[in-house]
């Protein structure tokens, strides 16, 4: 700040205020009319803020993991008993899954089905959220330098959380499936009806444009349909937990408010695949891009 005489400063402030107010209003209108107009500004601000946000979010994350650890120690006995039971049950499932996997492989062979493209992913930590009622997004500490590409699916062990909507060189923004602007093509697992999962900024997105035929009910699982080419088919999304009149509400499998790490997955679904190479294993026809050029991917 430069020292100015009080009178001059007052004049400056009188001009500055209406000027900045109209500038803000203009930015709102401009940003609404053309979403991409501020994109480079956004990604550079994200990049500049990423190190600070990364550092700031660490103490909170550490505190949270400490609380989890103490809780874990307290309930270790019950947890153990539960896990032993669960393990037995899962061993049963493992047998079933192995059998199904080999059967599935044989059937693929018989049908000469094109294999799914190989996937590669980057795991990133959540460093900021959107803090407000009108946007549902997260920022993660991986960006273009780590091989993150716009449009990739953001998942964790439980299912789909969102997709990469903006990429900076060191950070990226994830648009959550609960955001007002999020639309995910899905199918109801039991009845195979297609629908669109539409976010509305509430905790539970709704199921719209449900294909006719068969009734959907509470407890039905919702998975991605793969239509539109952004997400691969079959990613678990959530489960129908309530009806708002005719509208089914879906509880996402991912606990979006608690998510600490996300995997940004490249399912090789991008339209422009440079340098296609055939995949050897099952002699399919589809090719995919090599991911070897991206050292950060595993």
């Amino acid at each position: 700040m430069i020292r100015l005489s009080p009178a001059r400063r007052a004049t400056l402030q009188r001009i500055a205020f209406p000027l900045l107010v109209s500038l803000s209003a203009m930015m709102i209108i401009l940003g609404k009319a053309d979403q991409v107009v501020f994109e480079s500004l956004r990604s550079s601000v994200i990049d500049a803020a990423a190190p600070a946000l990364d550092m700031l979010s660490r103490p909170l994350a550490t505190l949270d993991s400490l609380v989890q650890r103490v809780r874990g120690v307290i309930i270790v006995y019950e947890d153990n008993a539960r896990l032993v039971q669960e393990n037995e049950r899962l061993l049963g499932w493992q047998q079933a899954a192995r059998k199904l996997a080999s059967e599935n492989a044989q059937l693929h062979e018989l049908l000469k089905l094109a294999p799914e493209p190989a996937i590669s992913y980057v795991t990133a930590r959540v460093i900021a959220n959107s803090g407000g009622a009108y946007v549902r997004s997260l920022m993660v500490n991986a960006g273009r330098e780590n091989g993150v590409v716009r449009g990739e699916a953001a998942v964790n062990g439980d299912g789909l959380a969102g997709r990469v909507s903006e990429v900076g060189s060191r950070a990226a923004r994830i648009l959550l499936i609960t955001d007002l602007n999020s639309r995910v093509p899905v199918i109801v697992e039991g009845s195979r009806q297609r629908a669109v999962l539409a976010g509305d900024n509430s905790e539970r997105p709704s199921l719209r444009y449900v294909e006719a035929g068969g009734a959907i009910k509470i407890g039905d699982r919702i998975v991605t349909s793969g239509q539109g080419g952004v997400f691969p088919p079959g990613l678990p999304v959530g489960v129908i937990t309530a009806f708002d009149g005719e509208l089914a509400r879906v509880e996402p499998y991912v606990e979006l408010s608690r998510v600490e790490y996300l995997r940004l997955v490249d399912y090789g679904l991008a339209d422009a695949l440079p340098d296609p190479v055939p995949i050897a294993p099952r002699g399919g026809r589809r090719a995919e891009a090599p991911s070897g050029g991206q050292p950060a991917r595993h």
Partner: protein
Amino acid sequence: MARRAVAGSAPDRVDNAVASLLPLATTVLAMLLSIQPIPIPGYAALTPAFTLMAAYHWTIYRPDLLPPLALFIIGSVQDLIAGGLLGTTALLLLLARGLVLRHRDHFINRPFPFVWSGFTMLTGAAMLFLWSLHSLLTAGLLDFRSTVFRAVLTISLFPAASFLLGRAQRGLMGGG
């Protein structure tokens, strides 16, 4: 953000420079706090408007040290980081400043309940403004409940914020 270097060898000058940066620094801190990922279910939607608290406090006590340009920049950066529509937070903070400055005499050097009730009115107006703006821009009525909860949370956390800001202010600047 520090646009003025902390220069000068005399300790009181350094103190002065640090003290005059306090409004800016605390408002930036409030902005960073409001985008922290805190693992409480549903928290993101109800995040209190920390930046509004800081803007209100400093507009009452030291509006000279938190000029419109600072609010504009802080608001815009918050929108850019949080992924909101660019301009909304800047506009909100600037309008809040304009409104508070006009009625500043009612709040300055008055008991805390006056200050708090002023903030309550400001937050009510601010949340209503945000809701109307976003409803208008999405061409549909948005869920009003989270807006109400957010306003309530913001208003109820204000005494704590005001206490901390007041302590920092007295500690560094002396007096009110």
